[in-house]
């Protein structure tokens, strides 16, 4: 186990921010912690890095106890990488010195070797002499990454590291980053509020709400089998329906329009054209309850003069919501 959090709780000024956090991370795994702002995501990272001390619980890193009732290992001893939201580059040092900062006690030639390797890896060739304020946002982020990688950590923490990057660049950088991490067998924890980002890069996703991890599953698992409404809604448009006493989470794409034979007859509500498809509100009754579903409709469909439409729910794919579904 690269990282293990057991029964971690933390309060700030009488507010309990983290209640009972348990996380295990294997070698080479990527975990993303998601939640709304203020849910305590960054606190978890700070506890792992050693910037904060937990009130209760134990943290083990690289199979050594880093934080417990009797022990506290300081941040500079943990060799856990950290990439900050604002990159936190050292403004008074150039790119080379920034990247070599963590290995400055090594032999000069070795430093040069490592820095060059890192710069190649992150695509920063030729920028050694530049200063942070002379770099673009994307370049700064890469320097932050290179700087962290230079110390050869086996675990890197990313605190909202992509929030400031514009969306076009984002997916490109994400892909490159995940490649580097996977290639080098590094474990990583990402903290973000962006659900799409989480789904695309993670092996495991933890959803944090009110200081508890509501669900810890694979990306697939958390999207398709959310254990609560809030989890479900976090990852995209979600519809909930009760059938035979069980609550199901039905994603818009799990509803198929079937004009003639569709199981359910619904009134058409608001129609939004999103370019790649229509998003349609459908009102219907099922088992004596009223529902409003968001459904995706192919963009070529003609909804102009329709009042009603029939559709099917793919009950095979639909998943019963259970508490704390873990896969």
């Amino acid at each position, binding site marked *: 186990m690269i990282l293990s959090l057991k029964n971690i709780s933390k309060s700030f000024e009488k507010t309990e921010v983290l209640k009972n956090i348990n996380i295990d991370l294997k070698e080479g795994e990527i975990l993303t912690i998601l939640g709304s702002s203020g849910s305590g995501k960054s606190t978890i990272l700070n506890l792992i*890095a050693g910037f904060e001390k937990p009130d209760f619980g134990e943290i083990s890193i690289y199979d050594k106890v880093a934080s417990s009732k009797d022990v*506290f290992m*300081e941040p*500079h001893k*943990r060799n856990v990488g950290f990439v*900050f939201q604002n990159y936190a580059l050292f403004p008074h040092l150039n790119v080379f010195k920034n990247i070599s900062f963590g290995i400055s006690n090594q032999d000069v030639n070795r430093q040069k070797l490592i820095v060059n390797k890192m710069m190649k890896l992150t695509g920063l060739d030729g920028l050694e002499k530049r200063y942070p304020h002379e770099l673009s946002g994307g370049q700064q982020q890469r320097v932050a990454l290179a*700087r*962290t990688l230079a110390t050869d950590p086996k675990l890197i923490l990313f605190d909202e590291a992509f929030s400031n990057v514009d969306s076009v660049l984002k997916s490109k950088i994400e892909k490159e980053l995940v490649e580097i991490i996977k290639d080098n067998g590094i474990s990583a924890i990402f903290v973000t509020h962006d659900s799409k980002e989480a789904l695309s890069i993670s092996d495991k996703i933890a959803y944090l709400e009110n200081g508890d991890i509501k669900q810890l599953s694979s990306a697939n698992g958390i999207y398709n089998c959310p254990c609560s409404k809030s989890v479900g809604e976090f990852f995209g448009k979600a519809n909930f329906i009760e059938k035979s006493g069980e609550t199901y989470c039905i994603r818009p794409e799990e509803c198929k329009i079937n004009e003639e034979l569709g199981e359910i007859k619904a009134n058409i509500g608001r129609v939004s054209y999103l370019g790649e498809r229509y998003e349609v509100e459908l009102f219907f009754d099922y088992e004596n309850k009223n529902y409003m579903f968001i459904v995706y409709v192919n963009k070529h469909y003609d909804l102009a003069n329709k009042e009603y439409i029939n559709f099917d729910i793919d009950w095979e794919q639909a998943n019963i919501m259970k508490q704390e579904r873990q896969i």
Partner: protein
Amino acid sequence: MKLSGSNVTWLSLTTGLTSLVILPIALIVIYALGADGETLRHIKETVLLDYVSNTVLLLFYVSIASLIFGVGSAFLVTFYEFKFSKVYSIGLILPFVIPSYILGFIYSDVFGYFSYFHLFLMNIGVNNYFNILNFNTVSVVLALALYPYIYLIVRASFLKNANTLLNPALTLGMSRTKALLRVVLPLSRVAIFGGLSLVLMETISEYGVVSYYGINTLSTAIFSTWFGMGDSGSAAYISSIAMIFILVIIIIEKFSQGKARYTLESSSAPLKKIKLKGIKALFAYIFLSIPLFFGFILPFVWIVIYSFAYAKDSLDMSFFSVILNSFIASGFASFVIVVIAIILAYTYRIIPNFYTKYINKFATLGYSMPGAVIAIGIIILFGDFDNLLIEYFGFEKLLLSGTIFALVFGYIVRFLAVGLNSVLSSFEKIGSNINRASRSLGKNPFKTLLHVELPILKNSFSMTFLLVFIDTIKELPLTLILRPFNYETLATKTYELAINEMVQESAIYAFCIILMCLIPILFSLKAYK
């Protein structure tokens, strides 16, 4: 919860340094509680009430005058538009540059008996002249010297919050003037009280003006019981009464803030000002010119004139040795203050918890104490320490009492707050992430301080040094009590000359002080542009 290696070091250092700095103040309280004796009883029976009532009265008058000057000018300059308003907005800060005792000496010379002013009045037939050395003059002088505290803080508050407060009022149909008076002003009371509390604390501490003008306050009483009667117990007792006053002021200020626990989102839109023309503009000019003229222009011109008049006689070896003395004591003290401030602030930076936050507040206690009180505390502290050495370790003489270390320690206790607040805000500006980044990269807190914060903040820390330096150069009461034998600083020399009826000859020493006080103002003006 186990404390880790370097954290222990930083916490111990911080705790140790803060304890040292509080020690003199703690001793005052202890001595005051145990104070008794013939002298104290006599003082209580006869003059103590006078000291207290004079102090209260002085605080009252100074409050009124400084509020009028401070709030009034901030109000006019922020919300109204008239020609030269920008000049006034900057000029009104300038009285900061003239220490209150210098202002007091100058006015006794300018308006005293048979001054040019008096003679002028006599020439035009006015025969009844007033005695300049009175209570009202002292109040006005102090108000002129201290109102800039209120002006700056209130103006900053106006600029930040006015739009947010005004706009709702205006949309409800209030006229602009009414909105300013009924909404903005009352809601700015936190800033007003904040500035006023500074003024009041400085007034309690004030020694130079009140003693020169013959007003007996708690501050002068501390001096007279120490120097006149040699009774440190009584001096400590009176000091503790002064401390109670300070406590009351601080509590009132916290109380005024308490209900106003909202943070306003400041609007970035520039404030729309009301244009002033004609009679109204004239009123503004007259009102604003009073503090500007009497608080800065008149004294400054006087200093320049008399500096040059006596330059030939005064620019001798003793003049330069006085400057050297000032620089050495202040330089040494300021350096140590910056170092201690960095240690204290950095500990809070890397271990941000309840303990480090509040221990920093303790370290700033000295700033609200009158200089004379701190001086007595140090005399008691060093005196006891030296006696200990003599009794138990066979020392033959005094080691610490009366040395330059006593004076430097006094400056440290008094002005650490200035350094600490400056360093804390410098750290806040750069944010804690680069500190954490460095530590996550394997550098321990000390190496991080050395390789990250110090290089980045060296300019800020230099500025901190400068601010503290200037405060120590100006300082009078603490210096008068603690300075080594025969050790004159610019401040004490100015004072000595003035009380020996050589006010005009003191101008050149005052000039040096003023020049140094101008430096940070010029710096901040450049930043302002």
